[in-house]
């Protein structure tokens, strides 16, 4: 096919548009002015120091880590059950059950969080980090299922049958054959769920009671114009962390595809 330069230029311009706001983060995080505006005023690392000195940030960050790790682990475990069931077995009500599990993907988060809030209040569960985890597991599970389904789908059924023929039990086959083969999928599911949970705001905001997590902390900082440069500094660090995590996830995803002998079609979704 003939190269079309205008299409290439358009695609590059589009990438520039995608990255434009993010590029501003480090620029203003190191800019020596409380006002986020041009012209730039010179280099400073004060905003990083100011951010670092804030104790609430560390509490919020620790809370977010607790939530994100728990949500990632639980949603990946739930994802393994659902993905294995959907790729390996036929059972009654399958589309309905899987549809319900995947539903949070297409439901506005505000509705998910309000529905949970109403029920939690009615049942009398106090709002805490635990209730945020409950909500986050719910919204991370569909992503875990999607990633793990493609991992389980690329499994060669004959490997499993060979293990049975060689006298392995279903449990040991799962542990010795299937688990290692889908391990890259599990790792990228953990990382993606972790990232989603860390970034999630609505559920954390409404189901957290008086507990602060990172996204809620950031949202609170937006009210104070003087705090904005420190948020830019924090944002710079968060973007770096996300890029590192995603690169690791992408590495494992590609290795998984290479392992099962598939062809790389690109993308997480």
């Amino acid at each position, binding site marked *: 096919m003939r190269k079309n330069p205008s299409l*290439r230029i*358009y*695609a590059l311009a*589009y*990438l520039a*548009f*995608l*990255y434009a*706001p*993010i590029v*501003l*983060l480090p620029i203003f995080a190191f800019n020596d002015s409380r*006002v*986020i*505006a*041009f*012209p730039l005023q010179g280099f400073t690392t004060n905003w990083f120091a100011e951010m670092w000195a804030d104790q609430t940030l560390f509490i919020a960050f620790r809370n977010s880590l607790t939530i994100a790790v728990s949500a990632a682990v639980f949603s990946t*475990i*739930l994802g393994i*059950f*659902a993905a294995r*069931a959907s790729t390996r*077995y036929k*059972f009654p009500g399958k589309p309905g*059950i*899987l549809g*319900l*599990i995947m*539903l*949070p993907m*297409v*439901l*506005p*988060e*505000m*509705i998910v969080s*309000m*529905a949970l809030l*109403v*029920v939690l209040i009615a049942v009398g569960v106090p709002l805490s980090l635990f209730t945020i985890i409950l*909500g986050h*597991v*719910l919204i991370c599970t569909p992503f875990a299922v999607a990633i793990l389904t493609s991992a389980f789908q690329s499994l060669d059924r004959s490997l499993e049958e060979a293990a049975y023929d060689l006298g392995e039990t279903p449990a040991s086959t799962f542990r010795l054959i299937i688990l290692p083969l889908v391990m890259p999928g599990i790792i990228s599911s953990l990382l993606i769920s972790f990232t989603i949970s860390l*970034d999630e*705001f*609505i559920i954390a905001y*409404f189901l957290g009671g008086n507990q602060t997590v990172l996204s809620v902390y950031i*949202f609170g900082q*937006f009210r104070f114009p003087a705090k*904005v440069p420190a948020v830019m500094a924090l*944002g710079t660090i968060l*973007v770096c962390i*996300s*890029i590192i995590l*995603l690169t690791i996830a*992408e590495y494992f995803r590609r290795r998984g595809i290479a392992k099962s002998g598939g062809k790389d*079609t*690109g*993308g997480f*979704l």
Partner: protein
Amino acid sequence: MEQGAARGRFRNSEAANGLALVSPTAIYAILLLAAPLAAVVLYSLMVDSKVGLSSGLTFDNYLKVWTGRIDQALMLRSLTVSSVVTLVTVLLAYPVAYFVSFHVKPERKSMWIFLITIPFWTSYLIRVFLWKVILGYNGVVNSGLMSLGIIDEPLTIINYSLGSMIMTLAHAYAAFAILPIFVSLEKIDRSLLEAGQDLGESKLMTFIRVTLPLSMPGVIAAVLIVFIPTIGDYVTPELIGGGKLPMIANRIEAIMLKQNDKALGSAIAVTAMLIVTVVSVVFLLLNRRFLKGQSK
């Protein structure tokens, strides 16, 4: 007969195994999703007063929501914003997906997709806030243009407007639109395009008559993936709209938490879900039509 019974037993055991395996996830979704959603539907049919929820069921809340001027206006605004965002995002995304699928070497495709998805995985809150910083009264655009001497006074049309909300959301959901279109373009059999051109169609006509219809399922998926979260967006109206241009999600929060009227809030939530469902069903039917047209 015996074989049939054995097969039946196998089926049963397969069904039982499958159900057992899916049950932890299914039970979690039933307890924490289906039950709460059912509770919201139930609440929406009650009346919330100071003494608590009434036991009788009524459609009063829905009447209030569907005929109330504020609610109507907010629903219309949410629909408008998310429709425009969806249109803009999908139109802008299509050429990019097309470029990556048809003009990028196979071994570099996943690199492009990776580059496109990175901004999407970085903090949504911060990305939205960055647009506020960029488009604000003393923001990056205004201060940049002023220091370059292009304008003398800050432009006011770009801050706290529907336009800047649309811009922010279109940016936030860009990757969502590109991926499904890309996937559907990848599935197209390249020999069909060659056949089209061999039969004397121009490149443009081949695109319109072969590529575009075949990629429609991806376009429809993109429409839904962008439309659904944007209609329920809370952060952008709050930050970019400055709280002055609320949408449905902000309204649900205000009624449920600030006015503490769970029944009315639930009715708005159910209405929002109905809108989303109706739009989704319309697009899914369109999709089915496209698939049918292809198999003829």
